[in-house]
């Protein structure tokens, strides 16, 4: 079996920084990326994007080019367009590239697979015409596609404002921006404001975007509840409650967003322990201060460990690279501490805004744990919230039992879109929303593998 000293999984800021710093410290390092070019989601296509589109996306995006250049200049190797279908606790990785499946392994692994949109079921979310705000960004970054006949942006989180601002400057008609964060959030967030002001550029940026959008006439609705997407075969409108009244806005495109959460699928597949974070409302790996997980030799950094944003991710990545270098004998603990000090400081500074953002953009409990009965929760198998509640109350009192009974989580996405919601519904139905226990057991292949690809698996010369 092909073996490496260090394998970094993910080509976003954390992964690029980790591979770069480890390789620069002399570690033999391979970075595996499912994309064709480095940058991950946030810096997607940063190496190849036309200048005009890059300007549209803003200066933060363009920083990504620097990261990619540093990576390209390091001695780390890069395996692009590679799908990862397994990672186990013995640090064996299953990859698929050009239709060929193989197993490789490493002495150390850094998981930097980043975040995904928090999947939040709401009535009508499966209608064609409903997409995530992240999807809108990807279409903009990778293909220069923007809404052609108006768009409603709805949900919670700063990405909505960013995307709206980008759309505004591209001439897109924005019907409305619907903010579903509870009115009380601003009060809850206020105690964290002093800390957040140290990262004032985030706050000011948000305020600036909002001002520009308002000046351009974009309608804002805040404290929105009971949000539905409606339509027959495709999206026709959104309906919602605002200031006690029911409103409707016709639209053929809705981009929804409810924050981002770590994409924990791979780290859970590997057997790393995770626990539920009640502030970020997601599972996060249990890890030490150097981001080492509960599985020997596997570290998890960046948004895949906990949401901190792209800037914190690159610092965390660099630190993980130094720690990998220490673990592989290229530096001792003291040298690692010295090397990591600056990044630790910058990361601390950058993370100061997080408590404020988490409080300001904390979703209302019912949005996640109490969708109406008729809402489809498992998109793949079309299982609605009512069926899940019936299963829970007939004795199936954890997410896995609900899965076995209802097929929730057994479809193509293997629970990525419903895991979170089902676990929160279980917790709420059992009486304590905060007691969210482990989600679905994740099993390989975490990306599909055809039978002939498996039959031709290059498992290395290693006999079983």
């Amino acid at each position, binding site marked *: 079996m092909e073996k490496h000293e260090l394998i970094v999984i993910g080509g976003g800021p954390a992964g690029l920084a980790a591979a770069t710093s480890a390789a620069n410290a002399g570690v033999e390092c391979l970075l595996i990326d499912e994309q064709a070019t480095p940058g991950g989601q946030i810096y997607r296509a940063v190496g190849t994007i036309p200048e005009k589109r890059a300007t549209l996306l803003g200066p933060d995006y363009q920083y990504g080019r620097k990261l990619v250049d540093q990576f390209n200049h390091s001695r780390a190797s890069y395996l692009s367009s590679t799908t990862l279908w397994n990672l186990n606790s013995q640090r064996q990785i299953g990859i698929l590239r050009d239709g060929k499946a193989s197993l490789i392994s490493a002495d150390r692994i850094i998981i930097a697979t980043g975040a995904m949109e928090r999947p939040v079921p709401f009535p009508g979310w499966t209608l064609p015409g409903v997409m995530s705000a992240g999807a809108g960004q990807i279409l903009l970054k990778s293909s220069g596609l923007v809404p052609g006949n108006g768009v409603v942006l709805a949900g919670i989180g700063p990405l909505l404002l960013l995307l709206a601002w980008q759309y505004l400057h591209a001439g897109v008609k924005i019907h409305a921006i619907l903010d579903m964060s509870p009115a009380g959030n601003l009060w809850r967030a206020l105690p964290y404001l002093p800390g957040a002001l140290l990262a004032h550029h985030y706050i000011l940026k948000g305020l600036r975007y909002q001002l520009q959008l308002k000046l351009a006439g974009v309608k804002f609705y805040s404290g929105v509840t009971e949000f539905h997407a409606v339509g027959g075969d495709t999206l026709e409108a959104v309906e919602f409650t605002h200031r006690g009244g029911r409103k409707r806005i016709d639209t053929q495109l809705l981009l929804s967003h409810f924050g981002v959460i770590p994409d924990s699928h791979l780290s859970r597949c590997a057997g790393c322990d995770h626990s539920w974070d009640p502030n970020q409302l997601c599972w996060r790996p249990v890890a030490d201060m150097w981001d080492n997980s509960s599985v020997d030799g596997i570290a998890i950094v960046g948004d895949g460990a906990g949401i901190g944003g792209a800037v914190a991710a690159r610092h965390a990545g660099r630190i993980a690279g130094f720690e990998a270098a220490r673990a592989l004998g290229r530096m001792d603990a003291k040298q690692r501490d010295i090397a990591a000090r600056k990044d630790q400081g910058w990361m601390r500074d950058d993370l100061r805004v997080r408590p404020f953002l988490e409080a300001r953009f904390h979703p209302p409990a019912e949005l996640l744990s109490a969708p109406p009965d008729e809402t489809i929760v498992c998109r793949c198998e079309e299982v609605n919230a009512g069926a899940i509640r019936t299963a829970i109350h007939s*004795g199936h009192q954890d997410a896995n039992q609900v899965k076995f009974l209802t097929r929730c989580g057994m479809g193509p996405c293997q629970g990525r879109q419903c895991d979170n919601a089902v676990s929160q519904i279980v917790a709420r139905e059992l009486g304590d929303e905060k007691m969210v226990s482990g989600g679905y057991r994740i099993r390989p292949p975490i990306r*599909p593998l055809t039978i002939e690809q*498996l039959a031709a698996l290059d498992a290395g010369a290693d006999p079983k």
Partner: protein
Amino acid sequence: MKANADVIIIGGGLMGLSTALHLGRRGIKTVVLEKESPGRHASGVNAGGLRQLNRHMAEIPLTVAAAEIWKNIRDLVDDDCDVVLNGQVRVAESDATLQKLQARVDALKAQGYEHEQIIDSDTLYRLVPKLVGGCVGALYNPDDGSARPFHAATAFRHKAIALGAEIHSGVEVLGIEESSDGWKLDTNRGTFCAATVVNCAGGWANRLAAMLGESVPLTPKAPTLMVTERLPPFLDLTVGAEGYQLSFKQMQNGTVIIGGAHLAKLDFEQEQSVIDFATLKTSAQTVTRFFPHMAQVRIVRSWAGIEGFMPDNIPVIGASSKADGIFHAFGFSAHGFQLSPVVGRIMSELILDGKTDLPIEPFDIRRFTESESQEP
């Protein structure tokens, strides 16, 4: 100490639930102690095979009796358990292999069993049109099929409860000792007492047997299964192949379940298994050998369950060799699912009548415990 029930059953898998159900039918209240949740392990995650075909001779009376129950499972548990009985074949690639299967059929007939037959290639290809060409025939049982294991376990659980069973989840038995009126079980959630205890603890059953001084060579292993994406219907029967580790069936929802007892690497103490893709590679090769059209079908997931295996591949069923009031039903070696309805009945008869009409001598625990020389 006051008894919690007449009978305590250790293990909330299908063997334990079936035992609780059958005792309940005879008016006996039971307590089931399950260390996680009912059906969490082998019972919930197996391939759901309802197979009489190709069983060890000792199991044949039991499997035939169980098949009768599965045909009318609704009468027992008020639920269909999604039972589908379209038949099972064990394919022969060569004449020599087919002769071997024929010899088996002849031996069974001599014992009065006619549930297995040999079919020729014409019949085989009529039943399994997508099978690769060149196969000469198969061993066949038209009444075999499958059910959905977790749903079956759930149905058994609901019915057992309706008949008076109490199921305690999250309760692990840590010690067992005799008491004045039977047995005292120490658990992580306190002490339970009963006159009779039944060991249905699956992969963990030897922990209990050892506590009683009758340790057996049970090996916990983790057989692996794979499931594909949904496909249009192309197969009604379950397919195995002589000389190959293969169990291949298409479910009603179109997904195909691929088994064959390929093993994952098991850390029994941690209850964690690591899927071994080198063995699944062999499984995939077997699938493409017999069903070439499956080549580009996607595997969506694999999983492994913890199961108890006995060295002679048949279970332990019967009274304890060491103590009155203790009974065992474990070690089903990856083929217990189909037997579960009748095993519960056997256990209830042993407990209440002191005997059962089905021949269970081959399953006696003494075949292991008395092989150690014990001077009187």
